[in-house]
């Protein structure tokens, strides 16, 4: 609506608008400068994807090879398996990384005992502080063939399972442990959003006889819906990165079939001689696809939910 107003108006009106909004422009200057210097300026490096890049020759001296790096990427024998794995693992991670923290935040919000609430919040955030290097060790000890979980299973007469070498179990472990490690992060965002819910609304609903469930469903959830949609759209930006650091610490040739992802494959291919250009080509492909996904989901959110994500 406002757009049509802007178009109808002549340039003097535009000038007035600009003058009125000038303070907002000025406030943006520091952020814009930082983005230009540290994000846009280095983007000249994207040309690497079309070069046979060598550090000694740098960007000006390296040979131009057109789309050969992209052809090399597509020619990798396991490329499509790896793309499939990446999408599978990352889509499930995206969904659970929203759902689990959301449920947690709602459950925590129902806790009446403040001390318990505080403790639980702090503890749920703890795994986020530890690096995957540490967590990887813990997970291995739990799930290895003679690890804690198998010892537990055996005490019930269940045959040990080779969790870390199984194409069924390995992706599950990757997904669950990732959701568990980082659940504190989104949980805190949701908790902060829930505190924005006006208690007066809940009180008046309670007076009208609404149950706790109804209050959550009709008041809390609609209030934090924009935050959920926003996190969902943002996470689409990383849909082709399924957690390289985590998988590299745990995987092995037995589970390449199910859990080798784009980033781990590229890492292995550059292990002996760093394949700068191949990595750049893969990175660019990931960026373009993520960008398209974000654009589409942004449009959908605007059109169907009447909500501008950012």
């Amino acid at each position, binding site marked *: 609506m406002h757009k049509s107003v802007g178009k109808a108006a002549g340039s003097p009106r535009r000038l007035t608008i600009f003058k009125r909004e000038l303070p907002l422009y000025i406030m943006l200057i520091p952020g814009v400068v930082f983005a230009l210097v540290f994000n846009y300026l280095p983007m000249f490096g994207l040309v690497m994807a079309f070069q046979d890049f*060598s*550090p*000694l*020759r*740098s*960007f000006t001296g390296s040979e131009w090879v057109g789309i050969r790096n992209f052809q090399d990427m597509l020619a*990798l*024998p396991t490329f499509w398996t790896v793309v499939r794995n990446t999408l599978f693992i990352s889509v499930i991670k995206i969904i659970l990384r929203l759902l689990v923290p959301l449920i947690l935040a709602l459950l925590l919000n129902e806790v009446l005992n403040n001390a318990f609430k505080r403790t639980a919040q702090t503890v749920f955030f703890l795994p986020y502080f530890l690096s995957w290097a540490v967590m990887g*060790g813990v997970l*291995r000890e739990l799930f*290895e*063939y*003679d690890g804690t979980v198998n010892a537990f299973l055996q005490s019930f007469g269940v045959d040990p399972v*080779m969790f*870390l*070498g199984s194409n069924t179990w390995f992706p599950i472990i990757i997904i669950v442990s990732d959701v568990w490690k980082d659940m504190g992060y989104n949980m805190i965002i949701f908790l902060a959003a829930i505190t924005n819910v006006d208690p007066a609304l809940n009180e008046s609903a309670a007076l009208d006889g609404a149950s706790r469930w109804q209050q959550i469903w009709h008041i809390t959830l609609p209030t934090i819906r924009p935050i959920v949609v926003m996190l969902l759209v943002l996470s689409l930006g990383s849909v082709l990165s399924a957690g390289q650091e985590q998988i590299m610490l745990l995987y*092995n*040739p*037995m589970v*390449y079939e199910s859990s080798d992802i784009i980033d781990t494959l590229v890492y*292995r*291919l*550059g*292990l*002996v*001689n*760093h*394949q*700068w250009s191949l990595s750049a080509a893969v990175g660019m492909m990931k960026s373009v696809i993520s960008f398209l996904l974000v654009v589409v989901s942004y449009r959908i959110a605007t059109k169907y939910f009447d909500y501008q994500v950012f």
Partner: protein
Amino acid sequence: MKKYRWGAALLAAALLVTTAFSGCSGDTTASSGGGASSQADAASTGGTESTGGDSGSDLPVWQQPFEETVKLDVVIGWDSDPSIKEGTTPETNALRTVAKDLFNIELNFLWMVPNDQYSDKLAMQLSSGEIPDILMLDSAYFYEFLDSGYLRDLTSAYDEYASDQLKSTIDYFGDAPKTYSSRDGKLYGVPALLDTSESVAGLYYRSDWLEALDMEVPTDIDGVNDMLIALAKYGPTVNGGQSTAGLGSTSTVLNTNFALAAYFQCYGSYPNKWVMRDGQLVNGFMLDETLDALKGLKYLYDNGGLAPDFATWNSDQFEQRVTSDQVAATFGTYYIAAYPLNLNKDANHEAEWAEIDLATLGGSSKAAMNQVSINHFNVVTKDAPEYAEAALMKLLSLSLSANSNSTDDKTIYNGLDLPENGASIFFLPVYMYFPTPWEQYRENIWAAYEAQDPSGLQTAVEQEWYGYMNDYLTDGNDCENLGTAWGMYKSRLSEDMGIAIGLSTKNSGNYEPAYYYGPATTTEQRVSSTLNDLAVSFIVEYIMGQKTDADWESFRQSWYDLGGTDWTNEVNEQYNSIVNPQ
């Protein structure tokens, strides 16, 4: 192994030769260090009368200082070293002070990073157009630098300033290393040669368990398989019922230490090696024998001789299981007795390990041996200051001389070479491997032990090993620092384990040498990781039963199709150009 005895006579002769040489070449060679040549002249006048080389004034050329300070911008990959004085860094390295005080060379560290970050950091710096004055280059970079005209000619500086020790280290391995480092007869890099002949792999096993089983030590590969299966079955009866691996291996199956490369070799297949077949170099993993080895592994796996979950192990798992008595045998080089088998000894004093010499196993097998390889090239880049070439030679000579394995007289460093004083040759920006005369040292140490008199041991390593050996042989399992003492003794000094086996393999001649150790070819740089990945996946899938004999040919075909053919051709070309230079 050539003996490096630096007797007084040899020293004196060397002095005469080098001083005489520098005396006459000083005015003919344009690039010879003007700063140092007057010193050299001064030395040559005195050098003729003195034969002992014990007075400060007649230092060998490489030890003489520059008149004006040579300032070099350098970079380094390093890891903190627990064996030297705590808190020592490349900047506080006592040898850096030596370079300043003795040679008048100032090392300015542009940056230092942990070793595994080195190549990335270097790539970033090179991209920005900042190139260190002297540095170590791996073969891929070396040839690129050379082709782009970034390297300085080292020929005359090498002739003039390299110590005899440096020259003999390089010449010892024949002409090939110099050929690889030269273009049009000019030397552009000093190759750091890694002699790994002593580190030929053997099979280490729990001899206390084998004894308890009342089994004979096997003499062929079938016997080895049976032994591994039996040990896996027996293990749980003595280690508290824990699951036990007959043969322990990590998931990186093609490695030599704690992995399966040596198992393939028992069948006559040589992963990661180029072998000569019908006058052509062939990748050792593409031989028909590889399928036999795979069948052996499958048999072993199906009968419990290989841990069911071996493919999920990394080196941490391996270390943990060895330590807790869950591994009965593993392949490895001489060193693994000192790490990580020593941890097992620490945790369980009764544990005993022995080694099977793979060269003596019957059948088609031969031990695989990397005689020598070029780890890196030490170079001077085009914009380096004057005399940087001479400085490089001096630093490399220093590195060799200060090596704790070297018999060189260390008094010139005023005792600074001692690790306790914070001196490390690894913290210098350039590095040469020291060709340690193992056999000689073992002889010396044994002689000292029998006489109970270590005073004749010249080098720091000899004295160190002697100490451990004496502790272990005197006090047995009750000795102090049991794991370390046992590990050092078993890996370096005992007759039937570790280096002794490597050396006897070399002397026996029953080994498959590595024919090619030249620069990484273009195709190799591009595809070696892909091909290695392909091979590892195939091995694991074959062992697990997901691939069968029928898939072997198609695997081999795709290995060649994905770049293996080009790689093989390039290696043959390179090899021929070295062996039959036009």
